[in-house]
């Protein structure tokens, strides 16, 4: 017991005796451990933020995209390819309760960008041509005025609903409802403004503008396909079955016999969540391992200082051997000393990294994100474990060197 406890006391006394030098020795480990902690903490919070936004869309939603796609890979649309296989007829078929009984409602989408003019302003705005059912599918709500009505889906009505930020941009001082805006030389009437929602997933509805589906297809874009359909399932438990229903409905619509020939793809939010979790995990661990590399540099510093220490204290090694210490006692002593140094550095690094991550989270919160500070116990254990491991690995060589000192040799050089 004393053989174990003594080296810890000796290390403490040595470190305490030369505070500044000890600090320099540990600096590499402190910085390494701190960066591991920062990356893990901030990475974890960022991951939580992204995933909670996806969850915010709703976990009982199914997305239907044109074009086939690998189960795990990105949809074709994300790669910038336009595929025109998804039509309004498909959307109608999905709403047929005999074909997909669990779908409560669905919304069809096309997207575009246009220059929009209000009486006082001109802005480049991303818009979505959507069915009136959007309000039932996504969790958006109207702040002023109204959303579209069913007839407007197909009657080419020139009406628009603005996201909260777009409304402020185009009408800085006046109530937009009832005012006219000009899109592509066509005059539209603003019928409503949406409540502020914040960014969700990858899009931010606050900064968008909505027009009815046909109006966008025929008047603004000159196309007859859809970019996206989103369907809401009554019960989360029925999502898998409904995906199958959607697939068979669309195959029927497109006269497809073999699932290998599918010209569409169906995704649930749960799947998207899974994929995103995988991607963000890979990112997080990749960044963590880069941060951990700096620990190796710290380890080399520890090895250097331990070699110096063995040399400086060679008479002490000799004395201990003279009073009965065995080779393994000496090796153990120096190993424990180097582990004590890296362990102490690890604790300091965790404190430093934790503080940096905490201060960063305060700043990020000030910037308006729903950021949650987190310092998971796993990251603390991981960092501590790594620090101990570094001490063990880089202390091995100096310790074995100390163990090879012969007592006679050690006592000669005083």
């Amino acid at each position, binding site marked *: 017991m004393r*053989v174990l406890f003594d080296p810890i006391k000796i290390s403490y006394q040595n470190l305490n005796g030369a505070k500044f030098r000890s600090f320099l020795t540990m600096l590499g480990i402190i910085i390494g451990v701190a960066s591991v902690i920062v990356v893990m903490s901030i990475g974890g919070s960022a991951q939580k933020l992204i995933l909670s936004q996806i969850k915010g869309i709703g976990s009982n939603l199914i997305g239907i995209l044109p074009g086939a796609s690998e189960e795990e890979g990105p949809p074709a649309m994300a790669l910038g390819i336009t595929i025109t296989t998804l039509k309004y007829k498909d959307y109608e078929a999905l709403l047929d309760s005999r074909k997909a009984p669990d779908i409560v409602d669905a919304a069809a989408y096309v997207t575009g960008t246009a220059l929009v003019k209000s009486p006082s302003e001109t802005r480049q705005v991303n818009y979505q041509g959507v069915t009136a059912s959007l309000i039932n599918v996504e969790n958006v709500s109207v702040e002023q005025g109204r959303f579209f009505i069913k007839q407007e889906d197909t009657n080419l009505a020139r009406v628009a609903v603005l996201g909260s930020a777009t409304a402020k941009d185009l009408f800085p001082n006046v109530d937009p409802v009832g005012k006219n805006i000009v899109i592509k030389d066509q005059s539209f009437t603003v019928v409503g403004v949406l409540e502020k929602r914040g960014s969700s997933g990858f899009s931010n509805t606050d900064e968008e503008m909505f027009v009815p589906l046909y109006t966008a297809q025929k008047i603004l874009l000159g196309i007859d396909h859809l970019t996206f359909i989103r369907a809401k399932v009554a019960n989360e438990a029925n999502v898998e079955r409904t995906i199958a229903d959607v697939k068979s409905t669309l195959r029927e619509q497109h006269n497809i016999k073999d699932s290998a020939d599918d010209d569409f793809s169906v995704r649930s939010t749960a799947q998207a969540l899974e994929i995103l979790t995988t991607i963000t995990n890979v990112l997080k661990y990749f960044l963590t391992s880069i941060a951990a590399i700096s620990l190796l540099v710290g380890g080399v510093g520890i090895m250097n200082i331990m070699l110096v220490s063995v040399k400086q204290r060679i008479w002490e090694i*000799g004395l201990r*051997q*003279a009073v*009965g*210490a*065995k*080779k393994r*006692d000496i090796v153990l002593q120096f190993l424990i000393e180097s582990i004590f140094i890296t362990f102490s550095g690890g604790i300091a690094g965790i404190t430093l990294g934790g503080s940096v991550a905490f201060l960063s989270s305060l700043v990020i919160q000030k910037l308006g994100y729903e950021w949650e500070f987190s310092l998971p116990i796993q990251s603390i254990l991981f960092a501590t474990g790594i620090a101990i491991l570094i001490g063990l690995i880089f202390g091995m060589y100096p310790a074995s060197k100390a163990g090879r000192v012969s007592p006679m040799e050690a006592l000669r050089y005083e």
Partner: protein
Amino acid sequence: MHPLIKVVDLCKTYENEGVKTRAVCGVSFTIEKGEFVSIMGPSGSGKSTLMQILGLLDRPTEGKYFLDGQDTSAMSENELADLRNRKIGFVFQSFNLLPRTTVYENVELPLIYDRIKMSSSNNKKVLSALRAVGIFHRKDYFSNQLSGGEKQRVAMARALVNDPEVIFADEPTGNLDSKTGVQVMEILEDLNRHGHTIILVTHETVTASYAKRIIKILDGKIVSDREVSEKKRQRVENRKNIK
């Protein structure tokens, strides 16, 4: 009964980068339990080398060494460490105390490496060793707060604490003024009176004369081995009385 120490034709040749130095050669003698022996000779004559071999800090290159009847040449490093721990105590010229460590902890050191004996009696052993050399009142001092003479007392207590068969002292007065040196020698004398075997290494005639037997060596060979005459011992006693 076998002698405590028996060496036969002992030789030690150092080899450093091809250069061979014959430090000790052809040395034979026996030392009985309870003796007080000085190994005397000029600097470089091989005294420390001989002491390191007798103290199991180094192995001879030739010859046999029996400690307490056991042939030490066949022993492993760990067995030698155990023997050093239980049967041998060392006192060095430069004290060799651990810095930033208390007197008590320095004296306790050999007990820490003794994993067989009960540790419950450690405290008693340390305190009685401290008393035996008259340094009990400094037990909580740090080693670097002591004078040279006090440091050497601590070193003697450390050598004593495991109740060894033999205590080796290599130039124990070498770093002390003559008055403190005398005090240290008197403690060794006292320990011998209480039954401890003492082997003293020195180049000073006066210091050597505290022993009852002097082995003189020159260039690694024994040139004389005799009991100290009463006349000489008397002279030492007189010197003490003058002080």
